[in-house]
């Protein structure tokens, strides 16, 4: 992430959360936090607790974030933000937490008298992590149509091209899903399992070879002393270190009601 991208991201984040910008300049921004974001980011539960108890007037903080130090007047004090800074990662986490679940409708109004049907889709964006003593991640987005069971990959990218709205448009109506979201999730999971099974797993085999090698050394080391408590601990440590595993975790997702021409 370049500094300009970070700037854009921060702007979007505060904007989407309804914050006012006190100052918006090249290289830095000062934001008036809302009450919600103050609670989310500033880590001062005692203040908010106190305020609730006493019924005082909330005074959320202002936050100045600097993305380009060379471009900031001297009197401006703020936090330097770069890709590794804890504040940015806190905001990353907050973004994911605040936008884990969604429901949207395609913004297409039907003509008078002819109503437009919208089809339900379940979309999940996820991270697949291949883990042994090393790790790599893959991003995947899958959409499942909850009437005919059709599945589409890179679904999120398709959604980006469609105009979406949180309220159902006039003269449009939604079709009820035939596949329940719960079994929809099961279908997505089983598709993933099939796809992953077909992949090349030499990374996992290599890890198992490393594991076995170290395990053999360990056995030799504790030969005649197998009852030793350390032996058991070391074995568990090797398992944790090398055992290949694939974790699938969901970033976000939800229901999208789309026209049949949309996908």
């Amino acid at each position: 992430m370049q500094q300009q991208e970070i700037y854009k991201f921060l702007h979007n984040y505060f904007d989407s959360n309804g914050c006012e910008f006190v100052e918006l300049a090249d290289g830095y921004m000062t934001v008036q936090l809302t009450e919600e974001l103050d609670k989310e980011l500033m880590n001062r539960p005692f203040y908010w607790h106190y305020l609730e108890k006493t019924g005082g007037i909330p005074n959320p903080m202002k936050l100045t974030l600097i993305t380009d130090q060379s471009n900031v007047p001297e009197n401006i004090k703020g936090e330097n933000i770069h890709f590794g800074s804890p504040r940015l990662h806190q905001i990353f986490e907050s973004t994911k937490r605040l936008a884990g679940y969604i429901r949207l409708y395609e913004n297409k109004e039907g003509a008078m008298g002819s109503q437009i049907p919208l089809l339900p889709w379940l979309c999940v964006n996820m991270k697949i992590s291949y883990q042994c003593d090393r790790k790599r991640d893959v991003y995947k987005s899958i959409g499942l149509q909850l009437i005919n069971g059709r599945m589409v990959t890179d679904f999120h990218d398709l959604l980006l091209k469609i105009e979406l709205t949180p309220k159902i448009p006039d003269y449009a109506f939604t079709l009820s899903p035939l596949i329940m979201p719960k079994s929809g999730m099961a279908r997505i999971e089983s598709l993933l399992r099939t796809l992953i099974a077909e992949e090349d797993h030499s990374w996992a085999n290599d890890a198992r070879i490393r594991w076995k090698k170290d395990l053999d050394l360990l056995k030799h080391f504790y030969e005649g002393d197998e009852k030793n408590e350390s032996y058991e601990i070391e074995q568990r440590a090797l398992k944790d270190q090398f055992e290949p595993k694939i974790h699938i975790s969901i970033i976000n997702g939800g229901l999208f009601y789309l026209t049949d021409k949309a996908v």
Partner: protein
Amino acid sequence: MTVEIIFNSSWQEELLNRLTNDGPWGSWDLYKLAVEVEKHTLVPEFEGLRAPVHIPQLTPLPHQLEVAKQVVENMHGKAILADEVGLGKTIEAGLILKEYMIRGLVKKALILVPASLVLQWEMELNTKFFIPAVAQKKSYMWEQYDVVVSSIDTAKRNPHRDIIFKQNYDIVIIDEAHKLKNNKTKNYEFVQSLKKKFCLLLTATPIQNRLEEIFNLVSLLKPGHLGSESSFFEKYKKDSRSIQDNEHLKELINKVMIRNRRSDTGIEWKKRHVETIPIHFTKEEQDLYDSILTLKEEQGITQSQFSTMTLQREACSSREAVYYTLKNMLQRQENPSPAYEATIASLIKRIEAVPRNSKAEKALELIKKIGDKVIIFTEYRATQLYLQWFLQQHGITSVPFRGGFKRGKKDWMRELFQKKVQVLIATEAGGEGINLQFCSHIINFDLPWNPMRLEQRIGRIHRLGQEKDVMIYNFAIKNTVEEHILKLLYEKINLFEKVIGDLDDILTRLEFGSIEDHLIDIFGHSASEGEMKIKMENFTSMIQFAEQMKEGNHHAATGNL
């Protein structure tokens, strides 16, 4: 073979929950941002380092990045980091830890360091790496925090010990790990019984010396890598004279250990200038020194040769140091004979007759001339106290520094030295583990006979971050044991300007034993100065031979080309 797939189902439960309750639903803009964020933070490749991108304000040196890459990619996160003093092992460990944290392979980390370094580690991890490390202060902290820095001495004791064993640490990092060379100690046993998924052992002392120590350290990291205890010693102790086997052993060790030398790094180091300052005793000081020499002939006065040698060396430092030892010698005797008491008393008389300290006066003169920050190292606490008083009498501000100081006091003293006072007076144990690179002058008021210690002393200031050339002044009194030590250490072996590891390697290869062992034998066990001189001559020619061998190898190698 199939791989276990773990599908996180907690998201799904919450989705169903929100469907039933008709929300709440996130905003489309934030939702899109969240996907963007994830795409930016995920790590698409097994290989390579992501950490540098996260710490743009820190520019690791090429050898440090290489170490981190090696450890993560080829050593599977278990390694002994054995760079020479001052090459930035902390940075290497920080890089590795950061890399694992970014990749989500490490969440909980336990960092065990000498008590004097706890705060420094905490600070460096936080400011240089943005790793939220905390110094352990209360026992609840083990559970509350993910990255904890502590001393082994605290960690191994209950209640901490039991709590630590309940935590599931993903990585254990141990600084100054050469202290774990003895597998009979409590510290060793403690570290051994910790679960170590990933593990970094940091040490600056080359461990090629004693086979047993190597075996213990490697077995802590990776049990069985060098075989079982019995098979290892069967193989190497008996045949330890055959270089062939040692080559094989070296190869094995290099699989778990990385050692960079200053000369490997390609960095232009600030120079070390070493200056020997010969000092003449005053008449009274000479009398005191000589009267200690005569002790040797009087049977029963000294219990061991060691204390005579100690007294001699102390006499070269300060009369206070001698006095302190004499007092102890007298106290230790249950029923001192009248002759014994008389001898001690006569020595004390001579001490009282000494009106001034030639070395201290020289030091004062030098400090005034330097006009900048100076570290004085002495072996003796009595000398340390005396010097502090003496400098104060002459309007020079100073702070003491000792290994026995509590953590906070050490940090405070360092801070005072950096900001307020001109001189820091350190005793041996205090030399280890603090970084004083803002100072570029060292006075070795007296000399240790262990060159590794000398290297540690110099390493406090001759390290990365030092901006000036480093000046080292060695004080030696003419015609004393001190001069002999210096002759050996400096003039003959040229020790100060070269890094000791090189020489130690050669000696080990030739099966001559380590320098340290030789020096202890020469200075600690010689019965007379004559014996010491002969042993020293032998040792010097051995080293010269070793150096020739090294050069010979070079020639042979080029000849083959």
